[in-house]
């Protein structure tokens, strides 16, 4: 009788161990499945961000107008290093606007690439000026020309924004 009880206990114990192993395996599977989902979600969010980055949203256009105004203030204050950083951002956004609103720009008779070219030349002039200033040399920069080029860019962005608002209405 005692042997039978021992055998039953042994079998029950083995079953317990076996069930515990299955549960551990299931937990492992769930953990890896959760981490796979997390990885996939991360990738999807990144892809989505990249996709959004490719288009200039309505809100970003308002932000771009603000950035241009801030850059003009940096130019006025002769803080050329800060202006260069913002102008790189402006250039990137104008490039995006150029490809995104090519039809609208054509309709408005705006040659965006000419303005992007001016911004690029201005960035180079500012970088040269920053280096010249560091070397205690005189500068040949014409800050008001850069201010005017930025104003032209700002007016273009405002025109695009106004057209989009009209389309929405």
């Amino acid at each position: 009788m005692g042997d039978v009880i021992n055998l039953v206990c042994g079998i029950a114990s083995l079953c317990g161990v076996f069930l515990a192993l299955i549960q551990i395996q299931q937990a492992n599977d769930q953990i890896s499945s959760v981490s796979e989902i997390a990885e996939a979600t991360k990738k999807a969010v990144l892809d989505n961000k990249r996709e959004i980055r490719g288009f200039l949203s309505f809100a970003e256009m308002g932000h771009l107008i603000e950035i241009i105004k801030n850059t003009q203030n940096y130019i006025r204050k002769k803080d050329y290093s800060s202006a260069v950083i913002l102008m790189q951002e402006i250039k990137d956004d104008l490039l995006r606007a150029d490809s995104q609103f090519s039809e609208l720009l054509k309709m408005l008779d705006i040659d965006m690439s000419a303005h992007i070219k001016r911004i690029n030349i201005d960035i180079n002039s500012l970088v040269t000026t920053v280096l010249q200033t560091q070397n205690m040399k005189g500068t040949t920069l014409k800050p008001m020309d850069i201010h005017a080029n930025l104003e032209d860019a700002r007016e273009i962005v405002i025109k695009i924004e106004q057209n989009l608002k009209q389309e929405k209405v």
Partner: protein
Amino acid sequence: MIATEYRPMVDKLIHLTQNKQLNWETTSDANKFLITLGLNSVVVEQFASYPDDVSVVAIELLNGLGEKIDGIYISEPDDDYNRVFELYGMARRNALKIEQTISDIMNVLNSKDR
């Protein structure tokens, strides 16, 4: 020394600027002048090198977006310095419309002299 592939371009720029067939533009740098040719542009610039303070003329090629893609830098006393400095001087006079300004001033002076 002007690089071989640049030499015909420099000669042509001098020739056409001399004949008033090109319209150079000013830029945000008082010593830098730009000409747009098709989708691309050429920039001519004069500056003093650091720290030796030698005069340098730069001729740079820009792509359609105004990004510098290549350039040559000729400093004094290079054999070709006078040639590129001639181009810089012509581009400057053309962009700033110096001849036109002198002519306008002369017209006013002549009218007062009558």
